[in-house]
């Protein structure tokens, strides 16, 4: 899972946090609240908080449902999701990573309304919402190894 490191050198990281939690649906709400709390220092607007919460919810839900197929315990113990957030001044970068099945065709997976789990009534809007509510979304995935979604959003743009 290659990552772009260019931006890091340009902007100074001002705050960082990392959470590791079980891949269960109960933790979707926890992840949203944790990130919302993490960014309060930036005085985000209510809309910005909602945008970030929705994007987090989609990414974590994807990891629970698709990455791990809704299975709580894997071969190597409990299935985990790693959530990493960092602030570069007023830009928030979120990384949601699982060690699940991975995505074969990322382009296809990101198409609005496309879903591999219609039987679970997934709407296929997850990635579309992430892209709509964040400034940038990158997906890195290796089949059989896992998926990492990296999203960025600059906060406080409306106040300038």
């Amino acid at each position, binding site marked *: 899972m290659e990552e772009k490191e260019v931006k890091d050198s340009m902007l100074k990281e001002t705050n960082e946090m990392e959470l590791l939690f079980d891949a269960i*649906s*109960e933790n*979707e*709400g926890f992840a*949203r609240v944790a990130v919302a709390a993490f960014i309060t220092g930036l005085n985000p607007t209510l*809309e910005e908080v*909602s945008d970030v*919460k*929705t994007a987090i*919810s*989609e990414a974590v*839900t994807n990891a*629970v*449902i698709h990455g791990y197929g809704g299975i709580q315990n894997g071969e190597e113990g409990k299935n985990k999701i790693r959530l990493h957030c960092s602030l570069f001044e007023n830009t928030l970068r979120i990384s949601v990573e699982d060690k699940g099945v991975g995505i074969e065709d990322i382009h296809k997976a990101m198409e609005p309304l496309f879903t591999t789990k219609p039987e*679970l*009534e*997934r*709407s*296929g*809007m*997850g990635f*579309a*919402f992430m892209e*709509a509510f964040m400034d940038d979304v990158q997906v890195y995935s290796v089949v059989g190894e896992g998926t990492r979604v990296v999203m960025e959003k600059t906060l406080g743009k409306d106040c300038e």
Partner: protein
Amino acid sequence: MEERKMMEGTFAVLDRHLMVKMPRELDHHNASRIREKADYFLLTDDVDSVVFDFEDTVFMDSSGIGVIMGRYKKVSCFGGKVYAIHTNERIKKIMNMSGLQNIVEIMS
């Protein structure tokens, strides 16, 4: 506060309409509960339309869209309708982004 808790996730059948009070946070975790309960009512009661009430809902993601679309598929083949009421601007935006306004009557 107590009263609100009771209201959340409440189901009632009124004049062949299934009324569903949506939870405060409608995500994947809560969506499965709503889906199962709604389908039970659709199967056992004389219902042809569904009214989702978002009065108490402060958060919804794509899982909420899935629940509404799923119920629409069930009732629309018998001529039933789906309504979403008390939707705030945020919820309306998310519904419109998914094209839900074409199949569901969305009201404030």
